[in-house]
């Protein structure tokens, strides 16, 4: 069964066609890489899938359900987790509070407006467990604004995982990291459960190609090549559009 299916997806801003007639399927547990030169429409595609942008045309189905008309928060509740190209966190809160807030959407607790989040030991324990997974438990009570860039990248992944997503969208998770920090995040990516479907945009080819099962190559908002990793790498259009740059 496909975890995600895009059918004739298009997005235009006035006369500018940012995504044009893109269709592909991502199967459950698949690792899909989205490649393309700058301005190809990769992040716009993520924003369409996550619900931050409404498509001009076409549909988006999550595990067989058409979610095209749902707002972002309801898509998140249905299992879409994501990280952002530009770090996006609750910078005024502590590290653990960020993870607790991210996990709120998947529990019945989200319907209860009153009562303290801090007093909920179960929430804190499960958030701590996730922080251990991304090796951030040692700064759990530190304010996000006091953490390093690399720690924030890992926290973003922790928050996406806290939502227990069925589809994880990773938008350049290695961007801006040092060599050491890259190794840490790469380890995290490789340790993600195989049952989780992951779509990733990444420019670090060593990591990205090692991670991907299949690749979709975008150019000028159009799907240029779609296939297995080896097929896409071997395709001359790939070299022309991207790898030759």
């Amino acid at each position, binding site marked *: 069964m496909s975890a995600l299916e895009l059918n004739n997806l298009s997005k235009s801003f006035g006369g500018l066609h940012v995504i044009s007639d893109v269709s592909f399927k991502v199967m459950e547990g698949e690792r899909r890489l989205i490649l393309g030169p700058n301005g190809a429409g990769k992040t716009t595609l993520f924003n369409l899938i996550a619900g931050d942008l409404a498509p001009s045309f076409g549909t988006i189905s999550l595990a067989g359900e058409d979610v095209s008309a749902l707002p972002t928060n*309801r898509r998140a509740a249905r299992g879409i987790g*994501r990280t952002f190209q530009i770090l996006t966190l*609750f910078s005024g809160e502590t590290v653990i509070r960020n993870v607790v807030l991210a996990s709120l*959407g998947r529990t019945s607790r989200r319907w209860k407006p009153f009562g303290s989040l801090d007093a909920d030991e179960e929430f804190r324990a499960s958030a701590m467990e996730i922080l251990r997974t991304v090796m951030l438990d040692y700064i759990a009570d530190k304010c996000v604004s006091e953490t390093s860039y690399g720690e924030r990248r890992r926290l973003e992944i922790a928050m996406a995982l806290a939502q227990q997503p069925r589809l994880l969208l990773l938008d350049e998770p290695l961007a801006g990291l040092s060599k050491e920090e890259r190794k840490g995040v790469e380890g995290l990516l490789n340790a993600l459960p195989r049952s989780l479907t992951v779509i990733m945009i990444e420019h670090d080819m060593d990591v990205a190609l090692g991670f991907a099962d299949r690749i979709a190559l975008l150019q000028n908002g159009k799907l240029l090549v779609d296939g297995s990793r080896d097929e896409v790498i071997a395709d001359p259009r790939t070299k022309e559009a991207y790898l030759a740059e």
Partner: protein
Amino acid sequence: MFWITGLFNSLAFAAVLFLLAAGFSLIFGLMRVANLTHGAFFMLGGYLATSAIGAGFWIAIVAAGAGCALLGGLVQHLLVQRLAGRELAQVLGTLGLSFIVADQCLLIWSGDPISLAPPAFLQGAARLGMFAFPLYRLFLIVVAAFVAIALWLVVERTTLGAKIRAAVDDREMARATGIPVSRLFTVVFCLGSALAGIGGALAAPVLSVYPGLDTEMLPLALLVVILGGIGSLAGALIGSVLIGIIYTFGQILLPDLSYVILFLPMVIVLAVRPEGLLGRQAA
């Protein structure tokens, strides 16, 4: 004697300002919407209370809050939400609506100032040595303190508050983690409008209600929010006290320069700390 009485009156005025500015700050902080109908809601709350006073003082206050909350919800749903992401259109839309509300108030309640009698048990003064403090103004200070504590508890200690803070911090991330930001907008807009209406109703026995009250109060609320820091309740509290003191003493001591000394601290704060006293610096 003069300074103590002046300080007391400043705090009573600050209490009214806080009720007005707290909601404005929350709405501005969460939704990045400068809701220019906020002053009109304050005036409308006063007028609604004068009409409902026959049913009793407390019912009049509740009616003012409920009426403004309902209208605020409608404004959010029918106007602000439809103009999402278009700040200038929202500013112009809410400004235009404030004129409409003000005109309708003039039509319904005429142009004469209307005063509201405080309940009998809040009439008179409390004496402390040689000082006499009007009971109703003491009551205003107590109510504002109570509202400040209640709002602080909601924002800092509840799940709803955690979501509001998260959405103030980063709307995009809040949505991505499943927080229904649009619904939060409506809740906060209703709450902020209710506080403005209650503020106007509670201020009516002191300030009266009259055409132009909205345009007198709105700049003060803007000053409080800019001075204290957008989206910060503590900032709104500190800003209210500062503006209350400056406004009250300025009018008594330097009436010709009262607007200069009112806006000067804002200019200085903006130059030195653009995010306001307790506002968060943009990342």
